[in-house]
């Protein structure tokens, strides 16, 4: 048996400690710059200039709420759909199960590619519009609602939904592999219907994974850039797009405003994870374990 010392532990963890220091330094410089300490020679009226600019701007607030809304709806829908589809696959006969695999296309496709697919599917002259026209449900492309390049958020939500559902399925199928099918058989023998089995046995079993996926997906969609950038929604638009504008397009003077938004996004993410996991822990302790 080896002698295990704190020193060897520290040495073995060192690569990640250094990595985490880079991460912390990144956050530090983002926050520092948000207080107008940029190392550049611009003069700001006050160190809180960027935050004052943000809080005085109604657009920022709308953009924040819009990001929360799209992130919440897409993450919740993807988590629910991922749970239901995984349950369906898990209940297939073992020989057929491996053949339900096509969702993986969306695991492989990058966010920018999924966004492009949304444009060609949901655009006014897109595939879905064509199908509705051929089915005689709309008169021409003008009667198809403008979903892309507008502020509805449906394009962003659909995009994230398609990209994220397979991700949830990977996690849920991983945990379902550990569920003993005999429990289900017993429940069915005792007269439980399919819905009861799903909601009373399946859902509680996969709930921890669903909570984790929801947290990951919500925060990701809240702050990510790639997908909404391709979809190009203008107003109110996702926060990441606003950050990009302030960071790259408005000149260096306005960079602290971008940094302030990023600092707020960072603080919000931390708080969200903390509060959500606290809530889940509390709910868990209230519910009787099977």
């Amino acid at each position, binding site marked *: 048996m080896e002698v295990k010392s704190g020193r060897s532990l520290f040495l073995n963890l060192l690569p990640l400690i250094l990595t985490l220091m880079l*991460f912390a330094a990144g956050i530090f410089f983002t926050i520092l710059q948000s207080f107008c300490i940029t190392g550049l020679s611009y003069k700001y009226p006050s160190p809180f200039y960027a935050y004052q600019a943000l809080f005085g701007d109604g657009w920022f607030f709308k953009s924040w709420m819009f990001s929360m809304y799209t992130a919440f709806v897409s993450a919740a829908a993807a988590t629910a759909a991922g749970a239901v589809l995984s349950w369906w696959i898990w209940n297939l006969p073992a020989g057929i199960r491996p*053949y339900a695999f096509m969702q993986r296309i969306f695991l492989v496709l990058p966010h920018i590619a999924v966004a492009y697919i949304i444009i060609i599917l949901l655009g006014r002259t897109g595939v879905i519009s064509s199908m509705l026209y051929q089915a005689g449900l709309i008169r021409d492309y003008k009667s198809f609602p403008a979903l892309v390049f507008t502020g509805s958020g449906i394009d962003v939500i659909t995009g994230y939904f398609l990209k994220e559902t397979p991700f949830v399925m990977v996690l849920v199928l991983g945990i379902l592999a550990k569920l003993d099918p005999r429990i289900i058989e017993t429940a069915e023998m005792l007269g439980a219907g399919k819905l009861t089995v799903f909601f009373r046995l399946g859902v509680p079993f996969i709930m921890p994974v669903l909570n984790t996926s929801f947290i990951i997906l919500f925060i990701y969609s809240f702050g990510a850039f790639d997908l909404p950038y391709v979809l190009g929604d203008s107003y109110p638009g996702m926060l990441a797009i606003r950050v990009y504008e302030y960071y790259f397009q408005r000149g260096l003077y306005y960079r602290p405003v971008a940094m302030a938004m*990023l600092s707020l996004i960072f603080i919000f993410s931390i708080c969200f994870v903390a509060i959500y996991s606290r809530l889940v822990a509390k709910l868990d302790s209230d519910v009787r374990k099977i």
Partner: protein
Amino acid sequence: MKRRILFSVVIYNLLFALPAVVLLFYAFSSMWRYPDIIPRRFDMHGLSFISGEFQGIARGLGGSFLYSLCTVALTFIMTVLPASEFARRSFPFKHLAEGLFLSPALIPSMAFAAGIQFIFIKIGISDSTTGVVLILSLVSYPYMLRALTAGFQAIGTGYRECALNLGSGRLTALLRVEIPLLVPAIISGASVVFLVAFSEYFLVFLMGGGSVPSYSGYLFPFLNSSDRSAASTLTLIFLIIPILLFALTDGLVLRSYRKKGLS
């Protein structure tokens, strides 16, 4: 009953494959107009576009491959020793440490990448492949860490102790005994890290500043262009290449296992 199940699986696969089919239609037809459900005629516009733009595409793909593979290698080096500790030893604040080490995958990457770009400019590695690999490693190493920790847990400590008892050094035990046993875990971690790195657009754009060639950067301007045939063909490449790569890795690993009589 069985027929109904098979039918539902087919429908399921078709629904998820629909977007890829649409991309294929566009790739093989420059004449797909509203409101046709199927293109009026098929042509080779997409393919001839690729052969015409071959140099740009190859440059982008080459760049993406280079920094993605470097990211896979770096994340492996970063996480292999920490993963062995997390899998096998309990120490104070272990849960907190694990949570902290996984956090870069959770926090929106823009928030720390913007600050890190500031640092990289100061130390002169912005606009370089080094910078791109570092930032991509920072957002993707948690996946490698998770996979390797699970791998170390699965193989246990027995093999390592045997090797050490038989007189091997720690490094030899790691390189000759444990890492070969870890191959399946390494592959699953590496696949995710590769996908994250290969797919990323913004971070490469931010840290590479246009001077690091990438396929996502090459593809981007086409996505909002009117030439849907070209854009769709290029997007299909984004789908096909990782699939080919994963199939290839799986095949190679399976073959090496067969050679050793392990499967």
